[in-house]
């Protein structure tokens, strides 16, 4: 899937030794340090932890969407030989509540079941077979309650309440923002477009389902290894839920086998902690099956979005009115933050003087809505970018020109009233698409569609914020060490869930300290060893941690050079330079090996740390404090423009994605190879979101709980993807970088929907664009008589 015009950036490597001989540089494609161990199966993920005398832990799930819990019957399971314990909420001495903002999710249900995947009991057994039997034997008495399964019914006046104690009823969070006035839009706009879009509930479907391992150590310390994006936050959550002091808990986060937001928060951690407290010091393992992951794990919020967009006859946008309803399921998880980020992005990367945005995150008894790469922006981008095409059609204007006309530039205020003071490369991205043959030659390509085929091209403009916003500190703390053996240790505080930031950290440290890859060791996140650096999320990992790491490495470098200058008895450390394994005095050529130098330095001298806090927007747009707490507004954005070519089979409704072009402004690139992986992976994931992925739920029960029914794209469903970076230097970023983790996920759904509309003249407002939906839309159009 590489662009054929470019020479390949990488030689075939996958040999650790070749990688080890390299002194890293910034801006070149380097083999990922984790690649070799991962492809050869040697990497130890959380799911790979076992151990002598290990116990299996598993969960009895409620299986009923809404009910009062009367009792849990554990006796039958406890009597089964091989069962060590069956625990319920009565065994929990802490708050028994977890959650990032609003702590509303029980570790084990005490009062009420709020969705089918709720955990009712925790079973510990000698082996997996006994565990499965014991879970079956555990039962509970419920008093079923009427449930709410759509945002509409949840908002009705007498709707059953998911949380009786929540002041907002079934509204977890209502976010709104008003700038200018949309009331008189009809009078002031020459054109108005209105539509309602629906996007589905979507599963992350990572390779490694939720997994972990825990043990209560002899010194009383609770050690938890988990597949997580948030080890430091997990520690606080587990401590609070189980009633332990945080310092008693050690969280270890190996490379995650995929996460995409689904491990942004507690999954197995509290359960494992509880299990380990009742395991007499034996190690405990929990590993959700694919089906369990589907029903109990978080999902991308299903959304219903009402849009009304008004413009002047020349195409300049005048007003936008949106109402967003996000189904957050039974728990906050990150639902409030998701609706807030959605609200912030609901007008896209455009200048719109008059806006009224309203968003509701609504409690229901469906599966839990939570973080998923894109984080609310994927949904609103799907709506806004289709609105732009609908507007262009009504104005008879080229959709790309319409976007260019309204695109934000540096110094503009974006549509939520924030002045864009950082690099803003949207126009450059759109211009690159405009120049590309896939766009300029689209008419000829479309005319060559075969019989019963229709071809179309679609474009979108994208923006995605990075970081946590103004209130929650977006902080990273980096630590580097010159070891007593003269090697470098980089203490990574941010999890690498597959996106490659650990390798990038190594590249940064190696380049500053001029050390070969094999002289550098990465210490992966561990609350006892690394420093708190926030979550692996929000397109922030390399931006925030990278900045901290540069500072720490520069400090250590100076200290090494100064000490070397002293030992070499030269005046100025300017005359010394780090070289692989040593410091050289440049005028004389004398060298002092790092392992020698290290013996003269004590431990505190050999370690350097640095804190970095990401910048925040200084403006205070007209929103409540509650919304600011949920992360509004941001100041730093990545930008992009996508183009897709599709071919629609008008007999079967199958949409075949033929070509894909992504142009992105994510700042300067540290490792083009890793950058490319982020773009390609995000687009493949976005194609699934556009065409086939939908978790079907009936009355709170998941009907598509496996990968045979939840259809993710396979290799043959992903087209050739061309990715072009627009490398604009971002002064606040490490080496000019901005976040690239999420932005490309937001593009494929609206781009494909626009391309299908271009091909067939029909717009499908409900995604995914499955063959039957496409075919139905085509037939309805044919029966209206409006062919082509």
């Amino acid at each position, binding site marked *: 899937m590489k662009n054929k015009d470019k020479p390949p950036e990488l030689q075939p490597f996958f040999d650790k030794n070749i990688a080890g001989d390299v002194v890293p540089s910034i801006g070149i494609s380097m083999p990922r340090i984790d690649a070799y161990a991962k492809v050869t199966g040697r990497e130890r993920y959380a799911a790979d932890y076992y151990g002598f005398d290990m116990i299996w832990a598993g969960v009895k*799930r409620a*299986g*009923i969407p809404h009910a009062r819990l009367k009792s849990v019957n554990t006796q039958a399971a406890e009597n089964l030989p091989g069962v060590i314990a069956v625990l319920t909420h009565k065994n929990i001495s802490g708050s028994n509540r977890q959650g990032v903002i609003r702590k509303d999710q029980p570790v084990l249900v005490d009062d009420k079941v709020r969705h*089918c*995947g709720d955990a009712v009991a925790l079973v510990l057994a000698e082996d*997996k*077979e006994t565990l*499965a039997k014991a879970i079956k034997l555990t039962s509970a008495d419920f008093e079923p309650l009427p449930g709410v399964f759509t945002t509409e019914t949840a908002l009705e006046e007498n709707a059953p309440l998911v949380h009786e104690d929540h002041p907002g009823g079934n509204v977890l969070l209502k976010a709104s923002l008003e700038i200018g006035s949309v009331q008189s839009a009809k009078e002031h706009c020459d054109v108005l477009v209105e539509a309602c879009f629906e996007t589905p509930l979507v599963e992350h479907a990572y390779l490694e389902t939720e997994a972990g391992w825990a043990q209560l150590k002899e010194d009383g310390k609770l050690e938890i290894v988990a597949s997580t994006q948030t080890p430091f936050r997990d520690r606080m959550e587990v401590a609070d839920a189980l009633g332990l002091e945080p310092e008693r808990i050690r969280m270890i986060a190996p490379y995650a086998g995929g996460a995409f937001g689904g491990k942004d928060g507690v999954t197995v951690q509290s359960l494992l902690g509880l299990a380990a407290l009742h395991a007499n010091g034996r190690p405990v393992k929990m590993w959700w*099956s*694919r*089906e*369990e992951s*589907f*029903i109990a794990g978080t999902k991308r919020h299903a959304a219903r979005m009402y849009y009304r967009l008004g413009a002047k006859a020349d195409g300049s946008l005048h007003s936008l009115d949106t109402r967003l309803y996000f189904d957050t399921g039974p728990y906050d998880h990150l639902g409030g933050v998701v609706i807030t980020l959605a609200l912030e992005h609901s007008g896209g990367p455009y200048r719109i003087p008059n806006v009224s945005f309203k968003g509701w995150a609504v409690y229901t008894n469906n599966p839990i809505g939570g973080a998923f790469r894109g984080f609310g922006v994927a949904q609103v981008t799907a709506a806004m970018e289709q609105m732009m095409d609908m507007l262009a059609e009504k104005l008879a204007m080229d959709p790309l020109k319409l976007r260019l006309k309204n695109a934000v530039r540096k110094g503009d205020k974006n549509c939520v009233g924030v002045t864009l003071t950082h690099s803003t490369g949207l126009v450059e991205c759109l211009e690159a698409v405009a120049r590309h043959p896939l766009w300029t030659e689209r008419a000829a390509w479309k005319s060559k569609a075969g019989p*019963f085929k229709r071809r179309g091209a679609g474009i979108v403009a994208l923006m995605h914020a990075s970081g946590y916003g103004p209130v929650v500190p977006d902080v990273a703390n980096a630590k580097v060490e010159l070891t007593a053996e003269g090697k470098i240790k980089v203490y990574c505080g941010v999890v690498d869930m597959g996106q490659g930031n650990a390798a990038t950290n190594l590249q940064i440290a190696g380049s500053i300290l001029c050390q070969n890859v094999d002289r550098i060791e990465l210490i992966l996140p561990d609350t006892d060893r690394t420093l708190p650096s926030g979550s692996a999320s929000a397109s922030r990992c390399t931006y925030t941690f990278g900045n901290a790491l540069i500072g720490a490495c520069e400090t250590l470098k100076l200290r090494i050079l100064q000490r070397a200058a002293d030992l070499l008895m030269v005046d100025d450390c300017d005359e010394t330079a780090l070289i692989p394994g040593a410091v050289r005095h440049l005028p004389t050529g004398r060298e002092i090996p790092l392992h020698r130098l290290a013996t003269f330095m004590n431990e505190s001298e050999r370690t350097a740390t640095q804190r970095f806090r990401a910048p925040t927007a200084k403006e205070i747009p007209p929103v409540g404090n509650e919304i600011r707490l949920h992360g509004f507004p941001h100041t730093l954005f990545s930008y992009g423009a996508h183009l897709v070519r599709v071919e629609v089979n008008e*007999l*079967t*409704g*199958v949409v075949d994605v033929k070509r894909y072009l992504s142009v992105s402004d994510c700042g300067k690139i540290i490792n083009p190879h890793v950058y490319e992986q982020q773009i390609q992976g995000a687009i493949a994931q976005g194609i699934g979101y556009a065409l*086939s992925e939908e978790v*079907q739920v009936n009355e709170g*029960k*998941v*009907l*598509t*709980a*496996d990968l*045979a*029914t939840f*259809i993710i*794209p*396979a*290799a*043959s*469903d992903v087209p050739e993807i061309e990715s072009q970076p627009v490398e604009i230097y971002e002064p606040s970023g490490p080496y000019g970088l901005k976040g690239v983790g999420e932005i490309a996920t937001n593009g494929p759904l609206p781009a494909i929907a626009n391309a299908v509309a271009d091909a067939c003249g029909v717009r499908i407002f409900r995604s995914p664009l*499955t*063959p*039957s939906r496409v*075919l*139905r839309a085509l*037939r309805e159009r044919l029966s209206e008589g409006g062919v082509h």
Partner: protein
Amino acid sequence: MQLPRFDLKRPSSFHEAVRLLVEYGNAAKISAGGTDLLPRMKYRIAAPATVISLKRIPVSEPFQDSEGNLHVHALVRLSDAASSNLVRTNAPALADAALAVGSEQIRNMGTLGGNVCLEPRCHYYNQSHAYQFMDPCFKRGGNLCYLVPKGNRCWALACSDTVPALIGLRAAAVVQSGDREYTIPVEELFTGDPVRPLCLGETDLITDIVVPAARPRTAVVFRKLSPRGGIDFATVNCAVMLKLSEDREACEDAIIAIGAVSGKPMRAGQAEKNLLGRKIAPDVIHEAAGRTASEIRPSMRCDCSISYLRKCIESLTQAALETAYQRASSGDGVKPD
């Protein structure tokens, strides 16, 4: 996911396999390639005490007898069937169908006989039921259908890709039953009841598939539609046979077989009959496809609507008939795609 415990028997001949079936009866299941049975066992929807694996039975290469009939051993791997020159030349529709099954890994393990005997499937049945929170359905021995809650029968679908092709080819299955052997047309193998899908006796085993010699001016074409290119079971599949008269203009014989939409593969008898004797032209093909779509009654399913299926049946049949006509009229009626 782990397999449940079971006894493994590995007979080295069909005779021995049949003897084991007699001995273990209902408690035993046959595994040819295992690509369908093992996942079902992992899901715990099949839990045989004994698995009789046929992997040790020697497999003979496809061969042609003196009358030109093609004999394909039931345990030939689907990938081998798809790539066999003899199959590709004499029964291209079978090669195409074998190539359409599952993924490369599945074709490398799965066998022709196994695919013919494929258990009817349902989105809700072919899942792990550990987290489904519902009572067993008809196919699991219960008394309800997840798909049609008020229904009184199972609606699982016969999804084999090779069966419609074999019906189009008028192939027959050679069955070992105790010490005797008999032959039955592939089309007659199926009951239509997804819970007990095969007409075979409980101790019967298919040993060979026999495809009659290719006839002049005849083409058999297989087509499949599925959600993804790579791996899925068919949404609809279809095989058509078209034999032209000597002037290569009129239809002398026709078969239209539609699979994956009901409990057994279906024939569009009316549409076939209507083709007989008629001069083949675009409107005739269009009419036949339309008749097929209105005649076949697709079962309820969860991933698409019946009206969508009818539309797909129509377009798939039309495409297959057009290709079949081209091939039959141009004389090279037996070349694979």
